[in-house]
């Protein structure tokens, strides 16, 4: 196996992992602080991608479109929190699952009514469509490299926000003990609304940048939502650090598994079996990872609550 292939797949894993992190970060904070299962998180990712595609069509500028889509999705997220989700904080997990599942159905249909059933076309910005040469003999997609850069930047911003600001301190306090934080005067209600806005904005970033690679279509949020849940369960619910580690683990394992497992299997089994079983095993790999992590550390790798 040539080393350039290995590096390319590792970069792909890093790129996917960082985007997963953007999704998982909002999810894990909502989950950890509000103790709320929000299945509709993936719908915000979809809205972000749709808004980006629409604004690109209107304005012709990818970066401006992303900015507007992030703001728009954050607004949608905050409106959702104020109208529906706020009613659910004191309810049990089951009610939250049912209500947010209902939201998925509603948002999917509203998107279908506005944009139609056909997938939207969203292409990478012009200047970034080609490959760049990283090392002699190793070239890599400029667009994916940009995603890695943006992902790292947003992750750094988020860490600064959570670890170095007063709002972040409130968030961490809320994640480790909500009642105590409230008793100490943390303004929980506006904080929750703000948090939803931030989480929705992060979803929109992921949706905007993954849109050109995956597809902008109805239901795009659901598959990736499950992955984001796997990430936060591996990382430990409520922990940003855990979300990052979990996302990178899942991103790398998933990408590498898809690339290399069929190859490895073909060494030991017949080509037919390898072609059949390889992709299946690769899809299973992250769930195996999660089951293994939960088996040995039932609270995830970095539990936020003690």
């Amino acid at each position, binding site marked *: 196996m040539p080393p350039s292939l290995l590096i390319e797949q590792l970069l792909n894993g890093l790129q996917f992992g960082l985007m997963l992190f953007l999704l998982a970060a909002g999810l894990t904070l909502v989950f950890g602080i509000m103790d709320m299962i929000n299945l509709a998180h993936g719908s915000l990712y979809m809205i972000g991608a749709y808004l980006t595609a629409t604004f690109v069509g209107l304005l012709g500028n990818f970066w401006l479109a992303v900015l507007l889509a992030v703001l728009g999705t954050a607004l949608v997220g905050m409106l959702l929190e104020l109208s529906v989700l706020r009613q659910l904080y004191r*309810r049990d997990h089951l009610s939250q699952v049912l209500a947010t599942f209902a939201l998925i159905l509603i948002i999917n*249909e509203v998107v279908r009514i506005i944009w139609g059933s056909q997938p939207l076309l969203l292409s990478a910005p012009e200047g970034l469509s080609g490959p760049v040469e990283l090392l002699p003999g190793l070239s890599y997609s400029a667009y994916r490299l940009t995603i890695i850069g943006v992902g790292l930047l947003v992750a750094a911003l988020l860490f600064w926000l959570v670890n170095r600001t007063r709002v972040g301190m409130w968030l961490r306090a809320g994640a480790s003990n909500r009642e105590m934080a409230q008793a100490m005067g943390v303004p929980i209600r506006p904080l929750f609304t703000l948090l939803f806005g931030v989480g929705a904005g992060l979803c929109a970033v992921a949706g905007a940048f993954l849109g050109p690679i995956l597809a902008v279509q109805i239901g795009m949020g659901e598959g990736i939502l499950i992955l984001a*849940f796997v990430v936060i369960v591996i990382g430990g619910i409520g922990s940003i650090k855990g979300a990052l580690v979990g996302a990178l683990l899942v991103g790398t394992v998933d990408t590498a598994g898809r690339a290399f497992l069929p190859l490895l299997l073909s060494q030991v089994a017949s080509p037919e079996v390898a072609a059949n079983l390889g992709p299946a095993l690769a899809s299973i790999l992250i769930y195996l990872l999660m089951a293994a992590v939960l088996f040995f550390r*039932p609270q*995830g790798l970095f539990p936020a609550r003690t």
Partner: protein
Amino acid sequence: MRWPLLLLVLFLLAFPPIASATGLEFYQGLLTKIMILALAASSLNLILGYGGMVSFGHAAYFGLGAYAVAILMREGISSGWVIWGVAVGLSALLALLIGAICLRTRGVYFIMITLAFAQMIYYLVVSFKQYGGEDGLRARRPEFGLFELTDTALYYLSLAVLAGALYLLHRLVHSRFGRVLQAIRENESRALALGYPVFHFQLVAFVLSGALAGLAGALMAHYTQYASPNLLAWQQSGHLMMMVILGGVGQFWGGVLGAATLSIVEEVLQDLTIHWQLGVGLILLFIVLFAPKGLAGLLRRRP
């Protein structure tokens, strides 16, 4: 509850001849589907409602039951009884394996790990190209020896199985076993302190629930004559969970009520508009916000 139940059973028994006389065969099919889904939802209600185990992977057993029918028929085994035995046995075995691992975790982690196992089964089954892969597999109806499995026979068969299963579940949740199961749901530490083997009680309920879901899956394969990967997908688990929550978690008739209501609402809205999912979503949302105990909770007289 006695009289309404008796009337319902009489109505269901008398429906097929009435339907064929009045040209309403379509509704006989719908009722068959509802009864099968009611069985699956009731099996989930046993662990979710009475056991407090929120399994987000029930589609694994449901789908496995369906695939057992399709694969065995394809391999030339055509005895319905054998096929049912395999479907139920395999589902029970799978539930035993998954339950033994998952029941070590609690709360949200339990939800996620059951989901993870169901996803593994999904991808595993989809990878077998010789059994249809992502296209699913045709499932011819097997032979039951005593009768031919026509649409009407399947209707009565589903009714009989559902009635039998509900009787069993009713006896079970009101037995000592059922009481202990509910005690564990209410306060696990106390049940443990009283000396009950909590893990074993939960595991037995989990396996029983999986087995019943497998049987429902087999019936579903008879109904659609097709084993679809969708039956194994996480949306199916979500759908079953919706039915239980909609009907009433831990209410005995919750699964049946939820399955019937959701299926009928979907059917009606599908006729009205292509955007029927919007309607389903709004109704579900309304019920969560304004009827927290589900439909069975609304019907039940306040004490």
